[in-house]
């Protein structure tokens, strides 16, 4: 049953997610897209685009949307014939995914908040984070590397125009956001308009 599996995977992701929203995107991409294939590569990329441009925590936006999509894509759910059944299951999946990602960290927070405050300046906590932070940067890198594929960029041989345009967009957006602090919302909309002008 997809709902139970969704609950287990998202609880697991929530518990081990250190390092903020972007680290969680990598985590979701690894567990849901790469390993389990519940959501396709291009669906996931679209979900990330929408999660970044809507209000709220990116991790929750992404979990909600992935929860919906994973349930709607599930063959068992698709075989349901009642009207609106697929959407209703999708809604249940999305709420379930976002709640699953929250409940374990909530318990951890209540149990350890006092401990962490007491040992905030301790060398033990500092050395643990000295190992953790660099590893999280590796995790962050996996999301963009895994999504650097034909589904998102087009094939260099079969669809050269799409490929060249995509590479150009990626380079300009990277430099603009990293060095010039481009606004993510406007950047996404402008790239979409460029897409309509070129491919529309």
């Amino acid at each position, binding site marked *: 049953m997809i709902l139970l599996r969704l609950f287990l995977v998202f609880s697991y992701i929530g518990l081990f997610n250190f390092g903020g929203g972007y680290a969680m995107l990598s985590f979701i991409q690894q567990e849901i897209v790469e390993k389990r294939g519940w959501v396709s590569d291009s669906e996931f990329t679209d979900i*990330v685009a*929408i999660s970044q441009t809507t209000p*709220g925590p990116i991790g929750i936006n992404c979990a909600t949307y992935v929860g919906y999509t994973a349930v709607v894509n599930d063959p068992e759910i698709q075989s349901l014939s009642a009207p609106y059944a697929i959407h209703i299951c999708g809604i249940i999946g999305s709420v379930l995914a976002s709640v699953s990602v929250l409940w374990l960290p909530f318990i951890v927070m209540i149990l350890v908040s006092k401990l*962490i405050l007491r040992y905030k300046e301790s060398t033990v906590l500092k050395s643990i984070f000295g*190992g953790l932070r660099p590893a999280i940067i590796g995790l962050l890198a996996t999301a963009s590397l895994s999504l650097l594929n034909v589904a998102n960029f087009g094939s260099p041989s079969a669809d050269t125009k799409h490929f060249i345009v995509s590479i150009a967009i990626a380079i300009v957006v990277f430099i603009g956001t990293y060095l010039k602090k481009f606004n993510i919302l406007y950047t996404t909309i402008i790239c979409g308009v460029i897409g309509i002008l070129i491919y529309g």
Partner: protein
Amino acid sequence: MNIELFITFMKIGGFTLGGGPAMVPMMEQEIVNKHHWLSKEEFLDIYAVSQATPGIFAVDMASHIGYKLGGIRSGIYASLGVVLPSIVIILLIAIIFSHFRENHWVEAFFMGVRPAVVALLAVPVFSMAKSAKISWHNCWIPILSCFLIWICGVSPAIIILIACLGGYLYGKYKLKKQ
């Protein structure tokens, strides 16, 4: 109290673009300056704990602030408040978008957006590498962890556990040497 907490966090969740870190200034404004629920120092302590505990940063902040003000029940109200706008907005988009995904113009729009998303995901790698003080001595850690996750399919959870353990042991070893 709980309802007020819920509404305050709903406002914070519904009106901030750019994810968790972008919410901190607005949280401080609402919690410390406007409602005087916490002092600036208490707020900064919660900020430190939320960075060190697992989970979604903004929700960690919300649940911790709620918990501190009125126990577990208030913690739940505050966390649900901060995520409710996200869930509602995303669900509306998901349901509407599922009807238009095959549309020619929508597909063209996203063909332009997808490479930008990949580039946007690469940016935090470099900006966080700067703030985490990655140097020639420890740059092998992100490279190795990325390789293990991306190529070998190792779960990020295992990498995180190993990294914590490695950092702990290295700290102990350094202390012994001194």
